[in-house]
């Protein structure tokens, strides 16, 4: 119990620290407590929404990853690798190209795209013999490449200026952050993380095995629907605002499990906070590593995540 409280405390302090760090560092170094007028403009219009959005995106992707892993009984399940992020990206893109005038078209279609991709991968990966690691990962690859080709097809409809911004966004990019984007992702993460945490105990049973969970009284079908819906909501809102930031849902829950074990009642909420910290720090690196130019944050997370995926695959 004390260890639990201590971890909460530690993570909260770490998050605050990461936020402060990210707000101070950038291509322009800012002292938060002493801002000139231009600096205040940079701070409140650009950096502030960007850092807050990064935190929400990280929390969304990590908690969605943690829950999908428990549900699919596979530590390699990750929104980006399963094609869920690409589903959301395609939805966002359709909204962007065809329904630009509706504000809510992007998150709504992103949510729909994420849900559809999740469902498709799940149906493909499941067989009569159950669901093994390789089958799931392969299904994810197929769905990802298929969706990517449609996305590429749609980009041919964009003009050159929008195309460049879009390419960056596809890789996972926080530079277009707005306060509206932040509010939307915040709403997503508050609903998503709370509902997912409420399903953590049944998820603990499902992590052992779906049949075991049925035997001991879990409404497996209902839990699966809730987790799919909430993971799609989280990934949808995150991708609509910042593109496909990859591997966050893989790296963060893995580290959290190493620290505190596999109980989803802790893993899901702790992953949310740790995910926020991770993306905020990764974006700080993306903004400063080759300043004054920038990397997309997705490139930084993939640089860390891809080797980790290989390590986890080897071990499983």
């Amino acid at each position, binding site marked *: 119990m004390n260890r639990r409280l201590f971890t909460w405390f530690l993570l909260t302090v770490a998050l605050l620290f990461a936020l402060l760090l990210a707000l101070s560092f950038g291509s322009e170094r800012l002292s938060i407590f002493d801002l000139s007028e231009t600096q205040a403009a940079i701070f409140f219009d650009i950096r502030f929404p960007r850092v807050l959005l990064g935190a929400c995106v990280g929390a969304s992707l990590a908690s969605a990853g943690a829950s999908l*892993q*428990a549900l699919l*009984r*596979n*530590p390699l399940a990750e929104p980006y690798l399963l094609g869920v992020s690409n589903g959301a990206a395609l939805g966002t893109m359709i909204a962007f190209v065809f329904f630009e005038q509706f504000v809510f078209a992007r998150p709504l279609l992103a949510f729909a795209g994420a849900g559809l991709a999740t469902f498709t991968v799940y149906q493909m990966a499941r067989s009569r013999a*159950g669901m093994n*690691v390789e089958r799931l990962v392969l299904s994810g690859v197929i769905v990802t490449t298929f969706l990517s080709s449609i996305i590429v097809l749609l980009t041919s409809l964009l003009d050159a200026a929008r195309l460049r911004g879009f390419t960056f966004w596809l890789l996972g990019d926080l530079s277009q952050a707005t306060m509206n984007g932040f509010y939307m992702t915040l709403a997503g993460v508050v609903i998503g993380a709370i509902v997912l*945490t*409420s*399903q*953590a*105990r*049944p998820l*603990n*049973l499902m*992590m*052992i*095995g779906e*049949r*075991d*969970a*049925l*035997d*001991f*009284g*879990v*409404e*497996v079908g209902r839990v699966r629907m809730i987790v799919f819906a909430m993971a799609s909501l989280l990934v949808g809102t995150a991708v609509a605002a910042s593109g496909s930031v990859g591997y966050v849902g893989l790296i963060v829950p893995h580290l959290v*499990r190493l620290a505190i*074990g*596999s*109980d989803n*009642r802790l893993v899901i909420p702790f992953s949310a906070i740790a995910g926020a910290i991770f993306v905020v720090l990764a974006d700080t690196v993306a903004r400063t590593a080759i300043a004054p130019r920038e990397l997309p944050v997705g490139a930084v997370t993939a640089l860390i995540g891809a080797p980790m995926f290989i390590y986890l695959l080897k071990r*499983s």
Partner: protein
Amino acid sequence: MLKARDISVWFGTRKVIDDVSLELEVGRIMVLLGPNGAGKTTLLRTLNRTVAITTGTIELDGVELSKLSRREIGRNIAVVAQENETKFPITVMEFVLAGRFTHGAAFGWESADDIRAAEKALELCDLGEYGGRMMNELSGGERQRVVLARALAAESKVLLLDEPTANLDLAHQALMFRLVRDRCRNAGASAIVITHDLNLASEFADTIMLLKGGTVYASGSSADVLTKENLAEVYDVQVLLDANPASGKVRVTTVF
């Protein structure tokens, strides 16, 4: 307590269970025997509705099983099945506490009662010190006992056990059956057990049901069911029968 009437199960165009009826009374142990593919596991799984029946009815305490929620079924019927290995590092205690899922709220933490029940179940299964160990570090036999402990921790009225002794050494096979019998005699539970060990069946069963090709070939006391003719017909083996000198129950020896 648990009553199945005229149940059949079809998997596609194949009839796996063909018109089986059974009645499990309070305090009794029923053993299902039969060769591989006779439908034992399928029959067992219909009894907690994890396999759907095509025709027939199943009642738990007079209420039709199809009218009960998953949670209500899980509250009353605990299962011991072959465990499938999880890829996540979970402790023995976490695993056993899964058996307490239907006792509290669907979310939140286990109560002190839940912890006590889990600890007691581990103690009974000769796993007193194992609570903090990781599941994937245990041997096959130890894991099987953990699976039994989870079912005992559930404190349910009915136990369904699918080959619970397959990986156990001699001492723990006996322990497993003694624990199940104890639950039935003293705690008002009842159990249905699948096993391939004819002698364990003979010792511990109140009723034996011998299945062949999805139908009941013979049913009754061990003396009624474990006959030379039945075993030759169902298993296609020759056996010698005598009485176990310790218990007086039928003892089966295979002739090779």
